[in-house]
């Protein structure tokens, strides 16, 4: 679905943040992007969503250069859940989720029945429907994050990019959101690309990992092959043991 060829991104055309990345994202995959702080994870997501313009190399979406897509066309293919969102203005949660429908809406037309249905479905899936009339200014961090995920769902795209979507959530909502993404991935065949810090969540949910280190793609393989005790120690300079019992799912112990 997405093919990246020799992607290089330099901040202010000087400092190299991503260097010569090549990889492929297959439709229906659940991809994790891992790496230390400053390794280029967020930059990579921004390049994939055309928020940043790449300096060298090409990103293909469905075999077409991503630069040939208009913002509106691209928004029908890729939805983004950014790391931070600040709200200076008093929108209701429903209004925020409705904005996910923008690529389908025409000027001066009011929200269609389909828009309203998509928004309600997305808000129910993220358990935010009861917050629909609440101002986003008074929502808690976790509620806000779910509202923003709902907006991405309302966008109804084959792929969703998420930048650390569960870092601010309590454990219950972490699993809720990850389970939701997993369901969307399996049932609706949505491609998920998620920047994630929690190795155990990565191990449980993703089926492929891209590992970034100082702007280089140092690994791109199946999650179970990457998340081994040796690799985690090597990449993050921390001791870790991957425990594989017969009666539980594998998990990682840090020491």
């Amino acid at each position, binding site marked *: 679905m997405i093919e990246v060829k020799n992607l290089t991104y330099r901040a202010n055309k000087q400092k190299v943040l991503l260097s010569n990345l090549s990889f492929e994202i297959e439709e229906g995959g659940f991809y994790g992007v891992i790496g230390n702080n400053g390794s280029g994870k967020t930059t990579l997501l*921004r390049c994939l*969503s*055309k*928020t940043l313009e790449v300096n060298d190399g090409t990103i293909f979406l469905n075999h077409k250069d991503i630069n040939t897509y*208009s*913002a*509106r*066309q*691209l*928004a*029908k293919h*890729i*939805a*983004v859940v*950014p790391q931070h*969102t*600040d*709200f*200076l*203005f*008093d*929108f*209701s949660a429903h*209004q*925020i989720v409705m*904005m*996910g429908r*923008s*690529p389908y*809406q025409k*000027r*001066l037309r009011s929200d269609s029945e389909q828009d309203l249905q998509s928004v309600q479905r997305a808000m129910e899936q993220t358990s935010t429907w009861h917050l629909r009339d609440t*101002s986003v200014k008074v929502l808690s961090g976790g509620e806000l994050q779910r509202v923003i995920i709902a*907006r991405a769902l309302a*966008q109804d795209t084959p792929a969703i990019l998420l930048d650390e979507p569960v870092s601010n959530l309590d454990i219950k909502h972490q699993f809720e959101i990850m389970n939701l993404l997993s369901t969307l991935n399996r049932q609706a065949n949505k491609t998920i690309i998620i920047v994630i810090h929690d190795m155990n969540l990565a191990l449980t949910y993703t089926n492929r990992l891209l590992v970034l280190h100082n702007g280089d793609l140092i690994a791109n393989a199946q999650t179970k092959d990457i998340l081994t005790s040796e690799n985690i120690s090597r990449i993050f300079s921390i001791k870790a043991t991957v425990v594989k019992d017969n009666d539980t799912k594998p998990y990682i112990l840090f020491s």
Partner: protein
Amino acid sequence: MKNRNLIIVLLIIAVVILMFVGCVVGTANIGLNEAWQILLSVFTGSKHPEISQSAYYIVLNIRLPRVLMAMVSGAGLSVCGVAFQAIFRNPLSDPYVLGVSSGASLGAALAIIVGLDGVLWGVSGLSFITALATVLLIIGISSMGNRLHTTTLLLAGISINFLISALISLLMILNQQEMDRIIFWTMGSLASANFENVAITAFFVLIGVVVISLYARDLNALLLGSQTARNIGINVEKTKKIILLFSTLMIGVIVSFTGVIGFVGLVVPHIVRLSVGADNRRILPYSLLGGMLFMLVSDIVARVAIPPSELPIGSITSLIGSPIFIYLLFNAKKKLSR
């Protein structure tokens, strides 16, 4: 929904009543009934024999055009405020605060000095150009990478206001024979309104309001920040350029006829936002009518406050506007320190 329509209707009724009041009050003593007969004569074409010619002249050629100018410029300034607040993603933005109105007034003053006031569109044209130059200058000063820094934006606006008032003072001293006319641009006044001015201003305000309304949904998305707006399918750069171009066009034309009238674009959208929320599709129609009301009231106050002299309308709007601006600034400070 019913409630909202009702409020729109009430606002329209209030505008009509104030239009009438605006035609009645003033130094020349013309009674309610007389003013009514005179206004009716516009539609019937027949003049009442007992009403003097001068009363007809005052109501139809002096008061009516300035009332209409108050409405048109109020609507334009307040819609521009909505547009600026979305583009700069800052509830404190307004053409006056950011120095764009002053920029326009500098152009108007220059045009008079070099004698462009005889040329068609001369004053309006130059005031649009200098307003646009001010917008570009502010964006240049306050952008950091892709973002506009709020504090820098306001400081840039304030310093530009300083710079331009210095330049205008200089122009006045160097061109003492035109001093009165230039002062007019710095204080703001509706006194020179005539039907031709009103028609030209209304034309540009109408175009601007239509274009900005077409982009109301995009303006909502811009309030979430450029990156998010782009991710949900908005062509951010194009939208910003179009909105800035048309709102600056409105400012340029309005200022060239009324001078600098401050804070309308700040006060009205702010009050509207408190009652209808952040959705620009709702804010725009209310702000349009609210801007008309605000200017009609300010104009009436300016005329009746200290008879027989008339206060500059800009001083009235600033008296109301600056406390609200300070209040908003105070709120913004509280948010930053949290």
